[in-house]
C-alpha cells in the first residue's frame, strides 16, 4: 500500500486513490514502424528488481497522470514528476544515482 505524492495537486495519495499504468517513457510506434519496433512498444517491458519508472493516475483525485521513480524491491520512492516528459528529470536521476550507486542509469 504505497503513498505517492501527486505532482499535479500535491496530495499525498493513498494507493487506493491511484490507478497504476505500467512502465513510463514508452515511445509509441505507429504505421511505418518495423515489426521489431512495434513489438518492443507493444509487448516488451522492463521488469527490474530495483529502480523503475512508472505511470500512475491520481484517479480519485485530480485525475492527472504522473510518473514515479521507485525501487521495486524496497518500495523506496525517489520522486514523482509530471507525465509531460520523455525521460526522467536530470536532478531525479542524479538523486537516484546517489542513493543507488550501482544503478546502471536510465536507458
Amino acid at each position, binding site marked *: 500500500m504505497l503513498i505517492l505524492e501527486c505532482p499535479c495537486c500535491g496530495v499525498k495519495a493513498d494507493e487506493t486513490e491511484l490507478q497504476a499504468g505500467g512502465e513510463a517513457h514508452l515511445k509509441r510506434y505507429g504505421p511505418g514502424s518495423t515489426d521489431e519496433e512495434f513489438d518492443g512498444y507493444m509487448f516488451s517491458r522492463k521488469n527490474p528488481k530495483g529502480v523503475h519508472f512508472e505511470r500512475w493516475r491520481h484517479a*480519485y483525485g*485530480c485525475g*492527472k497522470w504522473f510518473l514515479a521513480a521507485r525501487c521495486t524491491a524496497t518500495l523506496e520512492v525517489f520522486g514523482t514528476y509530471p507525465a509531460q516528459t520523455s525521460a526522467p528529470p536530470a536532478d531525479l536521476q542524479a538523486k537516484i544515482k546517489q542513493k543507488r550507486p550501482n544503478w546502471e542509469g536510465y536507458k
Partner: protein
Amino acid sequence: MSKAVSALGGVSHTGFVDVAEAGLRGMITVRGDLASAKMKKAVKAATGTAVPAARRIELNGDKGAAWMSPDELLILVPYDEAVATVEVLEKALAGEHHLVADVSDARSVFTVKGAKASEALMKLCPVDFETLAEGEIRRTRAAQVAAAFWESGADEFTLVSFRSVAGYVMGLLEVSARKGGEVFPA
C-alpha cells in the same frame, strides 16, 4: 422548475451527526488556462470570487469556485442559475481554448453536520482530517466511489458525488453516522 428533482429527494438521517442530501446545486465544469486573465474575469463574473489556488475552494454566499485539477475548476451556483452561468462563462472565455459543461444534474450533494462530522467521514475517506487546511477541497474516494468534500461551515462538511451513486453514498453516510459509532467518544 419542479420537474427537476435531486436523486434522493432530500432524504436525511440523524445519528451522532446529521447527514442529508442537500438537494440540487448548480455545478459547472470549466477547463482552461487557470492563470489567464480571461479565466480570472470569467470566474469573477460567474461567482464573484477569485480563481482558487490549487486544492482550494473560494466561496461567496451560495456561489463558489473550486480547484479540481491544474486545468479544471468546478463553479458552484444556485441550480436555477446554472444555464445562465454557463453562458456567462462561455462569453467570458470566448477566443481562448476552454471547455464549459453544465454538470449540475450529474452530481449529488450531501451535508454532514455536527461537532463530530469528520468522524463520520474518516470511516470512508483515506484523508488526514487533522491536516486538512481551511478552505481546502479534497477530492478522494468515499469507500468505493469518487467524492469531493470541503468544510462548508462550522462543524459542517459538504460532500459531492456522482448522481448515480447517491443512494450508495447516503447509505455509507447513514451507517457511518449511526449513534454509538463515534470514533473518539468523549
